[in-house]
């Protein structure tokens, strides 16, 4: 477990994005072609493929191309490492921090000048 923290960091980084979390959620129901995975997202295929690459680089998913179809699936052994209370706590605090940033930047910065 000496690389526990590093491992968590990489898994956490991979899952720190809503698109990537959604992809992993979907893949836990079973393997799926890239085209099907990309459907729910309002982004170009190149952007979506970047997300898949992060997941694949961090070993959370794997993919294989057969003919013209690339199919993805989740890698259970890596996900086992993610079953961690600390990861959950990190995710919670990361999301909380991001919400704070979004709230301040979106709803409060207009008042900066007024407040002097």
């Amino acid at each position, binding site marked *: 477990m*000496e690389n*526990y*923290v590093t491992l*968590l960091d990489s898994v956490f980084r991979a*899952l720190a994005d809503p698109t990537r*979390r959604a992809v*992993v*959620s979907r893949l*836990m129901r079973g393997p799926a072609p890239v085209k099907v995975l990309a459907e729910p997202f309002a982004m170009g295929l190149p952007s979506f493929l970047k997300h898949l690459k992060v997941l694949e680089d961090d070993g959370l998913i794997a993919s294989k191309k057969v003919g013209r179809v690339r199919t993805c699936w*989740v890698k*259970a052994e890596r*996900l*086992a490492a*993610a*079953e961690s*209370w*600390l*990861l*959950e*706590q*990190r*995710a*919670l*605090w*990361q*999301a*909380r*921090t*991001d*919400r*704070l*940033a*979004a*709230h*301040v*930047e979106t*709803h*409060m*910065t207009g*008042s*900066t000048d007024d*407040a002097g």
Partner: protein
Amino acid sequence: MQAEPSELTIARYIDAPPALVWKAWSTPEHLARWWIPHPIECQVIKLDLRPGGGFETRMREGAGDFQPHVEGCFLEVIPEARLIFTTVLTEGWQPAEPWLALTAIITFEKEGRGTRYASRVLHKNAADSRRHEEMGFHEGWGTVIEQLAAFVRRQG
């Protein structure tokens, strides 16, 4: 020295001065907007910003009753710079046995025209923290982790 797995640090840049980030933390109306993710509703019961002052938030999903979320007390309050709270004490230094024992050290540091905002969170131990999962606690993001856990268990 490698960090103990029971400690975590989250830091990021926020494009607003420390005074404003502090305001988002120290004003109940603002805190309620970001402390808990949508669609869960947050109620700020206590936000007594002084050492020994109570800190309590409750949460509600849908039309049910508000449930306990965080209950603790502040240990240190330095406006626009540092905020420390713990859940092992409640208002007035009263010892407590929380479902999740933690101490959070929140720092607000001026960086350029914005703020370097960091949360360092200390936990008692893994076993203690696992208990809260058994109690069915969840907070939005936890969903995917729960799915992961269930998935991993299925793979057995």
